[in-house]
């Protein structure tokens, strides 16, 4: 068992860190303040090859492993949680399911431009009445000749409106099960601009405010039959498997946010003087920092282990759930402590830790709340 990174991963981290510091950090505060999607940064990330890191080269990607991708989301999130989730939702929730379940034609048509970053991707499962209880979803897809007709509403969709390609889950069949009628879902690839597909309200959020979160509306939206992704009726399992990967991305985002806040706190306590000395000279500060660093180090090990599991195992639900649960709760705790160490300044929007604390909160909620992660983990223990 080796906990050190090899040279190529070290070099990749150098790249991501340099990019984050140079291109992303200067815009982080403004992105939060204005709630404007950082389109220019996305264009730069496209040029830098960040939009298809774990996708094979033959499909327009970089041909790297999940660990490299995770390190990219981590380094971006250290300076800007918004930028981290744009890459994560695009890669884990849109590129990955097309790579896993798509036909060769679908991969050529949709995955190649996504992995090259020419197009942006999104994933839509959640509905107003169906969050953790995804089975409660109402959006329907009905076969009509050579087309599928979609009707329904999706909500809280990351990269909404900004994305060009959407993975949409809809009910296609109802079968009689032992406990009565059961919904069967299917997944579809829907392009922005398809008649009948429109965007509803933009969410006003607590954190990751530059990330575009929209409602998607389907009104007799007709898509070609070829846009069915994977097997009809198997959509629910596909969504869950996709979210296993997505959770590793969000765990990496949480990891980055926590690490970013820890660094801000270290820098601040060395500068800030009270009672004639820097507050870093007080044992309370030192012990707080020690606890924060230990937690983030543990989170990093768990996130990297989950990335390794995705690379080497067919099923990695538990590793992903554990990594997300731990990293998200660590990020929330560490950002909160970072604000506390900043005192009154930490409560102002002048200092990055205020934004980081708001950004951290979402990592405990989206792509499966911490409670869902506990269900996944305990379910595996008790089966």
């Amino acid at each position, binding site marked *: 068992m080796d906990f050190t990174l*090899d*040279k*190529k991963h070290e*070099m*990749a981290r150098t*790249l991501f860190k*340099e*990019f984050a510091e140079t291109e992303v950090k200067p815009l982080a505060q403004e992105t939060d303040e204005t709630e404007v999607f950082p389109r220019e940064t996305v264009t730069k990330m496209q*040029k*830098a*090859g*960040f939009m298809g*890191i774990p996708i094979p*080269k033959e499909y327009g*990607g*970089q*041909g*790297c492993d999940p660990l*490299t991708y995770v390190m*990219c989301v981590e380094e971006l999130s250290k300076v800007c949680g918004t930028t981290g989730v744009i890459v994560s939702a695009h890669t884990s929730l849109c590129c990955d399911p097309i790579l896993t379940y798509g036909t060769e034609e679908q991969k050529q048509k949709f995955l190649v431009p996504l992995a090259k970053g020419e197009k942006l991707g999104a994933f839509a499962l959640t509905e107003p009445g169906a969050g953790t209880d995804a089975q409660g979803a109402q959006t329907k897809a009905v076969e009509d000749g050579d087309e599928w007709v979609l009707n329904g509403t999706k909500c809280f969709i990351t990269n909404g409106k900004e994305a060009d390609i959407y993975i949409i889950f809809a009910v296609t069949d109802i079968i009689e099960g032992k406990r009565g009628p059961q919904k069967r879902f299917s997944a579809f690839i829907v392009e922005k601009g398809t008649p009948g597909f429109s965007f509803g309200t933009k969410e006003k959020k607590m954190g990751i405010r530059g990330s575009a979160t929209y409602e998607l509306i389907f009104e007799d939206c007709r898509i070609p039959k070829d846009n069915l992704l994977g097997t009809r009726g198997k959509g629910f399992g596909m969504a869950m498997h996709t979210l296993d990967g997505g959770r590793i991305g969000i765990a990496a985002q949480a990891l980055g946010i926590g690490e970013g806040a820890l660094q801000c706190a270290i820098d601040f306590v060395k500068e800030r003087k009270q009672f004639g000395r820097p507050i870093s000279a007080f044992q309370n500060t030192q012990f707080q920092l020690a606890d924060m660093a230990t937690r983030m180090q543990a989170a990093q090990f768990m996130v990297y282990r989950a990335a390794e599991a995705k690379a080497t195992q067919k099923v990695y639900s538990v590793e992903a759930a554990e990594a997300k649960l731990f990293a998200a709760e660590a990020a929330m705790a560490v950002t909160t402590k970072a604000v506390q160490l900043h005192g009154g300044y930490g409560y102002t929007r002048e200092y990055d830790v205020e934004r980081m604390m708001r950004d951290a909160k979402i990592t405990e909620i989206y792509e499966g709340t911490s409670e869902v992660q506990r269900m996944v983990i305990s379910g595996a223990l008790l089966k």
Partner: protein
Amino acid sequence: MKIVVCIKQVPDTAGGVQFNPDGTLNRAAMLTIMNPDDKAGLEAALRIKDADPDNVEVTALTMGLPKADDVLREAMAMGADKGVLITDRVLGGADTWATSSTIAAGLRNIDYDLIITGRQAIDGDTAQVGPQIAEHLGLPVISYAEDIKLEDGYVTVKRQYEDRYHMLKAKLPCLITALAELNEPRYMSPGGIFDAYDEKEVTVWGRNDLKDLDDANIGLAGSPTKIAKASDKVRKGAGETVNLDPKESVDYIMGKLLEKHVI
């Protein structure tokens, strides 16, 4: 079209500078980066390759410690096809003369149409190695390149010159020294990093792989430059900002100058 870009691993000035007892830099102890002028030279070569990827080959070449392998991997992660590392204990401590003699000998082992070097390295700031290599190899040299255009076996270079510029045309093969202002170098790509370690190769040459090279012209012993003393730059104080009207400012400054016995 074969382009060789000579690059150097230099101390990252953000990381502090350390010296050996003989006054040369202790390179092993410092954080390093690719010299900025060299990086611009590499970018220029990669842009030529971008325009004709199947017919242009870019080789990055460096002389240094074994750990200079890192800077070649970085060049390959940006898009260079190959790397060449010239490293040998007997080559250590070289000044510009010994360095250019050694690199020229390395270049004699390679086919090239165009050689690009940086104008100067941020550690030595001599701007001598590039032109010296050209002299050793009998090539035309165009220094201080701000813009490079290639056509029909000729290169046209916009050369920076104090308050104006020169437009110079030379027949290939030739050597160009590049300015950091030439362009904005690209980032490495994640896939490029994987290729640099998994697919591409660095050729390593020691003293014995280099032909037509006199032992009198290599290493510290073959270096006519003798360093009397070297030290890190003394850091200036933080300075003082005074907000006064012009007359008061003049009085204030005169007072300070008198106080320090400057006048």
